[in-house]
């Protein structure tokens, strides 16, 4: 046992000496493997990132919530009407659908500018809300109060401000009680939302201002009868499928759809969003997976090729070592150790490269990346597998050389 261990250590020592002696060749293999491992690193990290994002979305969305969009998202491209959800729908759902405890119509205006004194900031969205925005969206207030029923009824000129615009306009001071301009409308800030910071695809969620839905529709000339989306919360999240079917049939009845007609609305649940994200993940996995596989297979062939070359160039060394008493196993082990050693070094460089690439993608907001031990373990495992897989045949060939043949080779 101890002898075997000592033998392995010695063989590894020889492998290191040989790798260093043939360092230019070694560098080629390292580079090829590094590219493959870099892609693998990005894949695993971005899939983990997507999963974390999915979980955050579900958390934010709430498992007890269905989200109804006007229009069928599958037929949006053919120009179907998207303003199909009316206040009447909202009222009827609240009144008639069992198990519902909250129905919140949603309206929003995109691209507004907020001003305070000489400071200004462009925001991607001004959200219209009914009473209790913070409660409905599980989004705690850092300070101040939420909208009341009264604010909404009379279309009060009040606002909740997101964390980013609050910092932009007020720095570290409290924005409460101050009046800012949203485009041309003066509103008083009554609350500040806590920092949420779920980044990734789309604009940052903290870049927003929230007005009572009535204020938004009246002051910004939005359609008063219809709204884009509806948030419906149910008391028991276990029966979501059942509730969603009820909601669907109610809306179909309210919209007078005949049995063969397509829905003119779309119901999304946390479940659906997870489904979408897993599709997205699947696409990512496929695309990056192919890239990584190709890179690693190329790396493997470069490795195998160089080792075959090595075999003919190092025939004498192999023959000599056998003449001096190396068993076939020792030669096999040395060549495998060289192959695996190279792919491992490649893996380290690849991980560094992958993390660099990942950070860049994250900076460019293309992907969210999550590095973990998993990345490390996968990369090392993949590297060892490639080393063994592509190194085995040349190593076997080397080990099988009869010593006298190998020595005659020069």
């Amino acid at each position, binding site marked *: 046992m101890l*002898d075997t261990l*000592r*033998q392995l250590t*010695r063989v590894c*020592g*020889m492998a290191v*000496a*040989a790798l*260093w*002696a*043939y360092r230019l060749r070694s560098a080629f293999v390292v580079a090829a493997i590094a590219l493959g491992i870099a892609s693998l690193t990005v894949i695993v990290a971005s899939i983990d990132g997507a999963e974390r994002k999915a979980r955050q979305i579900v958390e934010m969305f709430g498992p007890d919530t269905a989200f109804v969009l006007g229009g069928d998202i599958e037929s949006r491209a053919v120009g179907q009407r998207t303003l199909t959800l009316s206040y009447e729908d909202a009222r009827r759902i609240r009144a008639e659908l069992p198990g519902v405890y909250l129905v919140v119509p949603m309206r929003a205006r995109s691209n507004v500018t907020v001003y305070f004194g000489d400071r200004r900031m462009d925001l991607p969205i001004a959200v219209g809300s009914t009473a209790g925005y913070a409660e409905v969206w599980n989004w705690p207030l850092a300070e101040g109060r939420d909208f009341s029923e009264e604010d909404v009824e009379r279309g009060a000129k009040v606002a909740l401000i997101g964390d980013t615009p609050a910092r932009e306009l007020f720095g570290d001071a409290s924005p409460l009680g101050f009046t800012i301009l949203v485009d041309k409308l003066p509103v008083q800030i009554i609350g500040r939302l806590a920092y949420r910071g779920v980044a990734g695809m789309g604009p940052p969620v903290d870049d927003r201002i929230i007005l009572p839905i009535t204020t938004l529709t009246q002051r910004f000339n939005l359609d008063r009868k219809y709204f884009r989306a509806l948030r419906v919360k149910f008391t028991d999240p276990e029966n979501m499928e059942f509730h969603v079917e009820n909601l669907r049939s109610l809306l179909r009845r309210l919209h007078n759809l005949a049995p063969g007609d397509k829905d003119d609305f779309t119901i999304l649940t946390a479940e659906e969003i997870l489904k979408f994200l897993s599709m997205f993940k699947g696409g990512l996995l496929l695309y990056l997976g192919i890239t990584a596989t190709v890179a690693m297979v190329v790396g493997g062939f470069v490795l195998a090729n160089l080792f075959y070359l090595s075999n003919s160039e190092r025939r*004498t*060394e192999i023959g*000599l*070592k*056998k*003449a*001096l*008493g*190396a*068993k*076939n*196993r*020792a030669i096999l082990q040395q060549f495998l150790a060289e192959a695996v050693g190279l792919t491992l070094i490649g893996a380290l460089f690849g991980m560094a490269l992958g993390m660099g690439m990942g950070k860049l993608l994250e900076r460019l907001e293309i992907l969210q990346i999550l590095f973990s031990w998993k990345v490390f373990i996968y990369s090392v495992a993949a590297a060892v597998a490639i080393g063994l897989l592509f190194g085995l045949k040349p190593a076997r060939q080397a080990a099988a050389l*009869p*010593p*006298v043949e190998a*020595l005659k080779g*020069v």
Partner: protein
Amino acid sequence: MSGAEALIRLERMTKTYLQGELTVEVLKGIDLQIAAGEFVALQGPSGSGKSTLMHLLGLLDRPSAGRYWLQGEDVAGLDDDRLSELRNRLIGFLFQTFYLVPYLTALENVVLPGLYSPGSARHLRHRAEELLVQVGLGDRLHFKPTQLSGGQQQRVALARALVNDPQVLLADEPTGQLDSATSAEIMELIAGIHRQGRTVVLVTHDAPTAACAERSIFLQDGRVVHA
């Protein structure tokens, strides 16, 4: 003389090669015995089969037919691993072209056979240094082969051949690539090894070199002509 008394004993050993359709019989039935402690020269013109015989004696190749006892053990039918062990323990090699690993230092080359045997690393290194001092290269321990002359390289090879303290030294034209002065130095070292009590088998086609040996075995056309 029985098989147990001779260190090396061959009986009707043959070696044939296939060259395309043709079978070439290089050794046509060799009978010979070498006692422990002998210094034997294996002589003959090129093509006489002396190198092939040398490879068979050194367990680098297998005979096509015949028997071979080494130290009383029938080695003709042993597997690769066992042959490696025997080579490692019993036999030291010297080659015409030295065969040093180019990327290893003199010391690392000398240590090499020891790495395939169970001894401790410290002892091994100590012995390797000692041997290099004995062959006059105490100041060249960390030189690469390319930084050494031919004579110096063969001295390194000699130290390597002795590192596992073998019974037999097999030298295949060890001075074939050296000038006469250097050759004489190497032959003197080989004679010294014999004086230490080791068996030496020297392959050469050069009569003055063979004269260092106690006995000559002449090969011609795959047969021993006189021993």
